[in-house]
């Protein structure tokens, strides 16, 4: 009970901190858009193709086109607080609806590759660390270094080239023009289009978790308690499982949660290349076509997404490790 109270207090504090941070993110992005010489807001209103002067006036007052930056900013902030994110130019729909639909598609892509890369990466890391300095270790390390240096979008291009164009195993794109809400795509079609981006994103994500797990396992294997376990006669795979993996797993999972930002960045590139109808592709289109409300909305939700990962990592670190968990109880 005491523990739950602690957790609630912890979460409360974190969330308040985050809301403050989010307000600054919103203000910062707004300033950036507003200071742009391209003037995206005016472009946005012009591109909406609104002809009636009344409507233009409404939109201009929504964005506060002729007002000073501070007024504009707080107007926009007030709108956001009322959950009014405006209307998307490209999709001709409320920004919230667009984001909801796109984010679900992206979450499927991101989380499936997140799990995939986490599991494979962890296993490779354990093998590499356990077999330190052998050929296997070196091969895994080289693989990771190369992947870490490879631009995500290039890997995606190569996969597209090999698996879709040459082998024809997967379609080259969803084929749904940007701007239509793709509700009538069958589940099977959609799954088939998910696999290749998912694999690409996983392959790219494996490197960091593998190298981290490997180094951490080697640290543990050099630790006093690992030595003592050896001295007590524990050996081989049992030793690694009992004292190695147990001690590496939590930091590795924590790291994986901290990687939400990179994951999102990867998704932006991968979705663009595979024309996967997710939030990343929407962000790029919104940026290129001055869909200001959509772009700002995506920035806000991406920050929330990244923050969720950080928060889970924090909770894992502070409440799952018995050293800190039990210590808190004793202290309270």
């Amino acid at each position: 009970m005491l523990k739950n109270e602690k957790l609630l207090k912890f979460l409360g504090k974190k969330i308040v901190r985050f809301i403050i941070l989010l307000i600054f993110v919103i203000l910062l992005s707004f300033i950036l858009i507003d200071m742009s010489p391209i003037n995206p807001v005016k472009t946005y209103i012009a591109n909406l193709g609104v002809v009636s002067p009344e409507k233009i006036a409404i939109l201009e007052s929504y964005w506060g086109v002729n007002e000073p930056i501070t007024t504009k900013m707080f107007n926009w902030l007030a709108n956001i607080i009322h959950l009014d994110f405006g209307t998307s130019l490209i999709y001709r729909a409320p920004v919230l609806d667009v984001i909801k639909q796109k984010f679900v598609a992206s979450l499927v892509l991101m989380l499936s590759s997140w799990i995939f890369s986490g599991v494979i990466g962890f296993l490779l890391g354990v093998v590499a660390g356990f077999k330190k300095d052998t050929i296997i270790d070196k091969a895994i390390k080289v693989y990771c270094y190369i992947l870490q240096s490879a631009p995500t979008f290039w890997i995606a291009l190569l996969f597209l080239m090999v698996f879709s164009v040459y082998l024809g195993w997967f379609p080259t794109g969803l084929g749904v023009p940007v701007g239509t809400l793709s509700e009538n795509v069958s589940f099977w079609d959609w799954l088939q289009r998910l696999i290749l981006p998912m694999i690409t994103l996983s392959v790219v994500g494996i490197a960091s978790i593998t190298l981290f797990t490997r180094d951490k396992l080697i640290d543990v294997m050099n630790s006093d308690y690992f030595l003592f376990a050896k001295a007590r006669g524990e050996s081989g795979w049992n030793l690694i499982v009992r004292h190695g993996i147990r001690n590496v797993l939590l930091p590795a999972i924590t790291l994986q949660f901290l990687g939400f930002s990179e994951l999102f960045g990867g998704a932006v590139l991968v979705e663009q290349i595979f024309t996967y109808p997710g939030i990343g592709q929407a962000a790029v289109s919104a940026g290129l076509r001055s869909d200001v409300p959509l772009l700002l909305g995506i920035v806000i939700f991406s920050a929330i997404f990244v923050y969720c990962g950080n928060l889970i990592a924090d909770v894992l670190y502070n409440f799952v490790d018995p050293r800190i968990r039990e210590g808190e109880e004793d202290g309270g």
Partner: protein
Amino acid sequence: MDKLLDVENVSISFIQYTQGLNQRDLKVITDLTLDISEGEILAVLGSSGSGKSLLAHAIFGILPENANLNGKISYKGKELSQEDKEEIRGKDIVLVPQSVNFLDPLMKISDQAIGHTDSDEERKAKKAKQREIFEHYNLGPEVDEMYPFQLSGGMARRVLVSTALLSNPKLVVADEPTPGLDEKTVQETLNHFKHMKEDGIGVLLITHDIHAALEVADRIGIFYSGYVIEIALKEDFTGDGENLLHPYTKALYKALPANGFNLTKGHQPLHGEIPNGCPYYDRCEMRFDRCKDERPELLDLGNKKVRCFKYEEGA
């Protein structure tokens, strides 16, 4: 009494990289020789950080990979290969480590003490044995479910000692078991070793605490700059120390508060700056010319050993 462990001419060195990645060979233990019999406590006495813990690691075959081990370590007359060490560690030979840091922070005490088991029956049997020994050392059932960080200093010490005794060992190697403990716990820990001795177990006590060594040990090996310079009997540390052989041991004895607190000038040469000759040359009061460039061997004088030219025949 049968001999248990024989350590002959053991040297341990490391390859080390310094600023700019210049490489050097760092000798931490040089030409170390000692032996332990059943029911005997041998203390190896050296200052903290002098690398004497590595002796324990060498016996258990758990030296770091970049360490170089030379010399012979035999158990019951049979030289131990790395495989042999892996086979007998935790069975015939057990380690009592320095501190609670040697316990896995994420595993409950009882699970660590029992170790890996292949079947439920084995597990039950080991658990019963563990409970029995823990009980003997005044560790209640609640300790079984604790994590290492929850143990108090005295409890941690008892856990480490009783964990060691779980496998009915013949030889116990205790690596710095007393620092950071209060008077009472130190006494208690030393008593554990006395009891082990009474049960016929050989104990190698690696320590920097001369009082602890004098209290329980039968013989004391003096460790200086990586060398064992003397192995003396406990009885020699009496009176004026006239039965002690090596000048350093004499100086050490005289530095004790009870014997006048006479401190010798200078410090032990650090690893890597040890002179060619006798490591004690710079501070020695009875040095010969040859001590400067020639290193004395460890002389066997029956139940004692000393590394000094003064005791060479004809000298």
